[in-house]
């Protein structure tokens, strides 16, 4: 697989480490009433879809940026690559 890094262009997937579903960006509020349930679901449950999957890849042997890659889990086709930083900021996370 080749990942089209937004800053560096096409890079071999071997340079990356995989983390998992991009929903891991959305860390629950630890002060909420239902925090215990929310953290259980956040940590352990997954949609695990067959088809388009948004997922986190870390460019470990490259520029060490986190990417959100949209990839088809049936064909391995990659349709979109974003910087995770941009995704998180667009959702109002971080400063």
């Amino acid at each position: 697989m080749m990942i089209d890094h937004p800053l560096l262009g096409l890079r071999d997937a071997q340079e990356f480490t995989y983390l998992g579903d991009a929903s891991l960006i959305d860390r629950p509020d630890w002060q909420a009433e239902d925090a215990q349930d929310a953290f259980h679901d956040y940590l352990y449950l997954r949609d695990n879809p067959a088809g388009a999957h948004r997922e986190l890849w870390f460019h470990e042997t490259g520029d060490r940026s986190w990417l959100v890659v949209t990839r088809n889990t049936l064909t391995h086709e990659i349709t979109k690559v974003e910087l995770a930083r941009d995704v998180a900021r667009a959702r109002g996370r971080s400063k």
Partner: protein
Amino acid sequence: MAYSGLRIIKEALSGHRGWKPAWRDPEPKAHYDIVIVGGGGHGLATAYYLASRYQTARVAVLEKGWIGGGNVGRNTTIVRSNYLLDGNQAFYNLSLRMWEDLEQDLNYNAMVSQRGILNLVHTDAQRDAARRRGNAMILAGDDAELLDTDGVRALYPFLNFENARFPIKGGLLHRRGGTVRHDAVAWGYARGADRRGVDIIQNCEVTGFKVENGTCLGVETTRGFIGAGKVGVAVAGSSSRVMQMAGLRLPIESHVLQAFVSEGLKPVIPGVITYGAGHFYCSQSDKGGLVFGGDIDMYNTYAQRGNLPVVEDVLESGISLIPALGRVRLLRSWGGIMDMSMDGSPFIDRTPIDGLYFNGGWCYGGFKATPASGLCFAHLMATDTPHEVAQAYRLDRFRSGHMIDEKGQGAQPNLH
């Protein structure tokens, strides 16, 4: 029709005209007491034990394709009971004992071969860990033997003992472990279940569950609605996809594990060898091919094929352990889809929906568990209480903190 040596002679003398199909091809009925979704090893074993041990009448196994076409036909055929943790030991101990009696029980030649599994160690720390695991195995009623370098050399003189970075310091030998002919396991269970009245319905894909007031009443399939008193799902690899139709999210990711087989060779590797310094294991099939594999590809996928970096990694590990592999030609490689659970351990449990039961999350170790998994799942569905050796395999164990992290690596699929 029981199989026997006498029967073979009789058939040979009469032109082999008396053999009958090993199982029927029935039309689905409108209602069953128990419907098993998934005609793989675990599903067929469950049906077999429901019919043979729990006297359940009217059982059906629904299979999307053909039986044994999934992971039971795509694995590297190893069976073993070398576990360390309480939740696992009794279960795999039972499973290995069931493998030992399997062929007599099923009246089917599954080529169970207890050829021994050797886990190599390369450092003092690994030797300590192997000794601890070996002692735990012996306490649990399994067998283990710690070998020094000479002991390993006597068994496998061709290994790379003097590797500068990973010299072989010994190994933990599990003599009762070995291999089983994987397809024959599916076929043997199918034949045994069919002979006891189980309907095995192939080319019948489940497309939905009928749930009313929190109770599962049956399944929608490509061959119409089939009512059921209880429904058991054993579709490891596709668990999330199937259970999602019942509205459940699981602590599972689907990953691909690649496996490889070489051209046929004369007998060279008598048992199973696992490398302690890389993820690589190897055995020789009865046809002569070296069967080996390594790590999962580490990303979510439902494609039954992997990528080249893992192929390269497995072959590098293999050649660093067995330099002679460099002269062997690879015949084929393939990938199987694994239910990777969050702690590397499986589930055999009820679900929040009454009458719906779940068996899955086997990671890359489902094959060796087939007999015990079938028995425990049958026990759970027939009696509504978990089998005593499978009590730890609960779906809600992450909520209560009772994970079974056999490798001690943390709660995330890409760590196992």
